[in-house]
């Protein structure tokens, strides 16, 4: 394999990252949270438009209420970053209200946040099952900011729930089709 040691470390991080759904009560240090947020700023965005905004919290009460309105949040995170799309800003670029392409940038931001958390030893898990309307109220989002994904953070607990289903591990070959 070609590449530098630094490059190998990146690949190792990609391969070893897992969704963490069980975390301890230990708070996430603000400095660590900021490290993850800084990585998110470097996520690729279409046209370098940066239409996503991050709403971070490590407040226990806010996190508790956030979990109450997020059925997909099985974990009890000690910090969370909500990726929002700034719809008015998107509209200013000419995106229609139902533009699906904006979700791609949510995905790249999420992947970057998850990897960054993993890189500094935090556990992270994405949640998309939540009431957009309720989360907007809980996080006091500005008008037009749509919450798209919550990245839950914390220190990984030693015991984690069983995966959603046992299945043979996929390889890249299973996911790839070559064309001439």
């Amino acid at each position: 394999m070609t590449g530098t040691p630094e490059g190998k470390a990146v690949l190792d991080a990609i391969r070893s990252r897992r969704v963490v759904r069980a975390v301890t009560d230990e708070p996430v240090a603000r400095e660590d949270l900021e490290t993850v947020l800084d990585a998110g700023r470097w996520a690729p965005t279409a046209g370098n438009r940066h239409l996503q905004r991050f709403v971070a919290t490590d407040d226990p009460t806010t996190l508790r209420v956030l979990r109450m309105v997020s059925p997909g949040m099985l974990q009890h995170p000690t910090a969370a970053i909500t990726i929002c799309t700034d719809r008015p800003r998107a509209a200013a670029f000419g995106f229609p209200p139902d533009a699906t392409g904006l979700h791609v940038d949510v995905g790249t931001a999420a992947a970057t946040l998850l990897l960054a958390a993993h890189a500094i030893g935090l556990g992270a898990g994405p949640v998309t099952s939540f009431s957009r309307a309720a989360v907007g109220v809980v996080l006091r989002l500005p008008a037009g900011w749509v919450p798209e994904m919550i990245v839950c953070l914390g220190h990984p607990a030693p015991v984690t729930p069983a995966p959603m289903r046992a299945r043979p591990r996929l390889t890249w070959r299973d996911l790839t089709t070559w064309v001439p």
Partner: protein
Amino acid sequence: MEIRKGQDPVSPPVLDEDQALELLAYLVTAARTQIDEAAEYGPLRLLTAARRLGAAIAPRASAATAEFVAGPLAAVPELAVPRDGREEYTAGLDELCRALAGHLTSHFAPDTP
């Protein structure tokens, strides 16, 4: 809000308002999210609600109810969905329903022959 243990009007409540509100919020928001989610998440969300309710009431519930919560209810895998092994999944839920019915019968009608 007080949901009391058994039919004894002076028995202590097993759920306080904060816990009830938490479950209420879960159920209401799950109703909304389920519109956009895969149908297979339906039973998962309901079982999560049952787990949370069970965890909330178990410390102040009867020993038998606490046993049901810690036993048959907890035995259902937290993240299981019917996607793979639908028959096994269904059979597991049927077994849970039977265990629940058995507990309900002994709880509410202990003298039933």
